[in-house]
């Protein structure tokens, strides 16, 4: 059980001109499940490896329970890590893989035996204790890697994309298993992934990173609903948020030949901007009105693709300018076909505005 406080963390690899991580500040609460989310090369794994003690810190501090650990070697930080490759010791059977870390800590043999068997039981590994890793399936290896972390009973768990080597079905079940285990054990967890579904479903909070910096930190739905900039808006959600430039008028914006009322922004909030980026999630565009009211604006567009996914259907719609595509997520029983003209309803209460130069969100300032 521990609080991990990261302050102004920076990492610069020798021979690289750009820092891999810059001014990274984040506090992870006791028992919290924190997800570091970002595209490949955004520095999230570097952060994790610095917390683990596998990578020296260039600037800033990392503290665990108030004790700065910058100079503390990995083996003394009492942190367990699950690697993307699982990193099971190929020459040891499952039992010894699980017991390896405990032996180093001079835990009595009887206690090692008890803890290993308990963890194996919890993870369904009991029949495989005498098998070597090469004789296990991908899912079983993953569970051994998790078990190796659990038996240590460490202060902090670190996960480095632990599900990315599993196939889709196994990934979902293992994900739920991980959530359940973390919930039961309640150990502070830092989980690195580039998969937004993992981030949304697993984390108490998400820290989104881009180019070595923190972009936004918050609860999954909070980040999803109020993205801080266009990067977060596009990165979270599948398909991503539609971003369309609009011309600003008097408390409204002009999208094609339709006026979108922008009642939640005062003229002061919009400042001198002439054009802004309008963000709308695919699920906030409707084929039929979901509720009565005057906050739905009809927009006529050309259907350029229909993607039935079973539970729902995605429509790729093209504005009359012929170049701007907008994706709408509509009901599975839509009758629209390619080439037809469709009128979809845009929920104006779900609109986001972004500054096109800074890419930051323009916050609403009116109720």
């Amino acid at each position, binding site marked *: 059980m521990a609080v991990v406080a990261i302050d102004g963390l920076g990492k610069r690899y020798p021979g690289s001109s750009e820092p891999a991580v810059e001014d990274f500040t984040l506090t992870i609460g006791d028992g919290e499940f924190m997800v570091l989310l970002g595209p490949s090369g955004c520095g999230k794994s570097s952060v994790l490896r610095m917390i683990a003690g*596998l990578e020296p810190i260039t600037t800033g501090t990392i503290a665990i329970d108030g004790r700065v650990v910058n100079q503390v070697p990995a*083996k003394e930080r009492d942190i367990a890590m699950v690697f993307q*490759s699982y990193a099971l010791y*190929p*020459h040891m059977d499952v039992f010894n893989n699980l017991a390896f*870390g405990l032996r*180093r800590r001079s835990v009595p043999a009887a206690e090692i035996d008890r803890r290993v068997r308990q963890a194996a039981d919890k993870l369904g590994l009991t029949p495989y204790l005498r098998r070597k890793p090469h004789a296990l399936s991908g899912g079983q290896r993953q569970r051994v890697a998790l078990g*190796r972390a659990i038996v240590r009973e460490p202060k902090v768990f670190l996960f480095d994309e632990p599900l990315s080597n599993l196939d889709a079905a196994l990934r979902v079940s293992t994900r739920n298993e991980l959530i359940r285990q973390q919930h039961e054990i309640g150990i502070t967890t830092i989980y690195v992934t580039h998969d937004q579904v993992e981030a949304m479903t697993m984390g108490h909070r998400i820290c989104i990173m881009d180019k070595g910096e923190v972009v936004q930190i918050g609860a999954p739905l909070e980040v999803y609903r109020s993205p801080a900039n266009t990067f977060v808006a596009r990165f979270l959600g599948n398909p991503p948020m539609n971003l369309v430039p609009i011309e600003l008028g008097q408390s409204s914006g002009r999208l094609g030949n339709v006026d979108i009322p922008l009642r939640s922004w005062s003229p002061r909030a919009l400042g001198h901007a002439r054009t802004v980026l309008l963000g709308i999630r695919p699920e906030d565009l409707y084929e039929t009105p979901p509720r009565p009211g005057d906050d739905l604006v009809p927009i006529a567009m050309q259907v350029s693709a229909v993607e039935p996914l079973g539970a729902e259907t995605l429509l790729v719609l093209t504005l009359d300018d012929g170049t701007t595509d907008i994706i709408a997520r509509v009901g599975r029983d839509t009758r629209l076909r390619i080439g037809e003209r469709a009128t979809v309803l845009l929920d104006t209460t779900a609109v986001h505005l972004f500054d096109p130069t800074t890419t930051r969100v323009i916050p609403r300032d009116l109720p």
Partner: protein
Amino acid sequence: MWRRTPLLLFVLLYTVVSGGPFIWVAVMSVRTTPEIFASPYALPSRFHWEKFVQAWAHSNYSTYFWNSIIVVSTAVVLITIFGAMAAHCLARYRFRGNRPIRFLILSGMILPPQLLILSLFQILLDYHLYNTLTGLILVYVAGHLAMTVYILEGFFAQIPQDLFDAARMDGYGDFEIFWRITLPVGAPALFTTVTLNFIVLWNEFLYAVVLLTEDDKRTLPLGIMHFMGSHQLDVGMVATGLMIAITPVIVLYALFSDTMIRGMTAGAVR
């Protein structure tokens, strides 16, 4: 079937060419020299096993054999330990001077042994190691370290870094990681170098003949020379001596050939 015939013929021919002389020597080892001179390719009319006892007991062969065992096994153990340590460091750690050190070690493979023999002779004399088994062991270790480091480094570098990181997270220090991860995971490569070094050193002649002159210090390859006098050649006893000399190599190869082949072909450690 017919498509494989050329390959089978080649393998058959290769076996005859490489195995034939061995069988010939094996047959001669139980025949006497007069018998061999009378009919070189004949099968033994009677098996003269007593020649092995004679070579072992009367021709100082036991001394040569034990000298060889002492020199070769000590040298192989030292080469393996130091070679594995050096290979582990070169493969795992990025440190200042990493590249020049690797270059220096590996450049040891380039020089032909004949080139070094005069200077080694003088060095051993200066340090009172000339004509001692210790001196020969040191020369063997120095001479074969480069190749061993080269083979092991290539293999160790393929062991995934995550394994080492995992062991560090499990609380292990650098030496323990070398001992508990690199060595066991790299075992196929270690067996390969152990077997190769053992065979090469067991047969080594040049350094041994220059650096050892006393009869009771000689190793097996020199002992076989003993039967080849300047005026007479005891072919039968040379064959018997060769069979004694080759036995440990065959035993070692039989024990480790599987692991050794795996070590030479293994790409991934998984």
